[in-house]
């Protein structure tokens, strides 16, 4: 190696970054070349002067703050997981409600398209008759025997003597039972 090559490798030589053969070659050269030896000494001296910039012991509050901050991070992670599950459940609930609503509307639309259902007509039964029959319906032993059913069926006519001779109108009973 000539002086130029030596100069270029002095730093690496100082840092023990060279292969053993190159290191030995430079070591031998520095022993015989005053200029390269002086340059080496200059670099070495500056490098060693850097030792004056000593390490600082970090304040303990750094460690405390790191550990304090890391703890809520774990809690936040747990909270995020809970919120994710809640969001998923809410989404499922929302989709379910939507489909039920959609299905309900479909059923309503279907019902609208259906021909009107024939319902029993009340005819000329008065409001009082209906109320009277409903009150009887509330009794617990209403269906205990057939006689009572017949009696109920005849009830409107029993209360109206003028109509008692007529055939009982079955439509009133149908109305109540159905």
């Amino acid at each position, binding site marked *: 190696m000539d002086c130029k090559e030596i100069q270029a490798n002095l730093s690496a030589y100082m840092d023990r970054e060279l292969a053993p053969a190159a290191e030995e070659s430079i070591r031998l050269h520095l022993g015989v070349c005053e200029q390269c030896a002086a340059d080496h000494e*200059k*670099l070495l*001296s500056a490098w060693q002067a*850097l030792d004056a*910039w000593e390490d600082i012991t970090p304040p303990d509050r*750094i460690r405390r703050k790191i550990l304090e*901050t890391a703890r809520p*991070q*774990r809690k936040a992670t747990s909270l995020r997981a809970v919120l994710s599950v809640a969001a998923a459940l809410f989404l499922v609930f929302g989709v379910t409600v939507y489909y039920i609503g959609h299905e309900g509307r479909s059923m309503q639309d279907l019902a609208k398209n259906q021909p009107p259902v024939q319902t029993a007509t009340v005819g000329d039964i008065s409001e009082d008759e209906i109320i009277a029959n409903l009150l009887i319906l509330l009794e617990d032993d209403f269906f205990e025997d057939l006689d009572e059913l017949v009696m109920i069926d005849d009830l409107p006519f029993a209360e109206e003597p003028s109509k008692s001779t007529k055939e009982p109108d079955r439509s009133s009973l149908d109305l109540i039972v159905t």
Partner: protein
Amino acid sequence: MTDSREETDISLMGLIKKGDAKAFELLVARHQRAVYNLAQRFLNDSDEAEDLAQDVFIRIHKAAATYTPDAKFTTWLYTIVKNLCFNVLRSRRQTVIVSVDDESMPELPAKNEDPVERITRQQVREKVIHAVGKLPENMRLVVILSKYHGLSYDEIAGIMGCSVNAIKLRVHRAKAILAEELSDLRDETVGN
């Protein structure tokens, strides 16, 4: 770093991944000094170094879940420090704050130290800080990693994301600049 230390760091990361708080505490204890001093020397600001050190470990804690030991743990760690350091420099440029020399003090001197020696040491320290501070950012970081953290050119290349030859050249140039900047120290020493 020895292999056993590297293995320990990787094991700790595995435990942190499983939510082991003690392992995280141990990892912080093992590396906070290096992280803090690297940031403090590079940024020459104790407050920023303190914030950065916290940020580094919080990021490590967050990243533990996805950490895979592809590279040496310290290479990964110092890469995080480097990136955050450059982020700080970028934000400094954006906020256009005039940098003030850091007032942080070194370790307390030994009680039996000669006062004259202490003053001299303090002066040398200030000159060194000034000289290192004058280096271009990339060169400064390489010097700090090499000189104060004892990293090999190969490791530094991994952290800086460049070739070993580029690091070799950068270290060489930095040493030449420092030799010029600190030449008066040498002269004083020779004069004494």
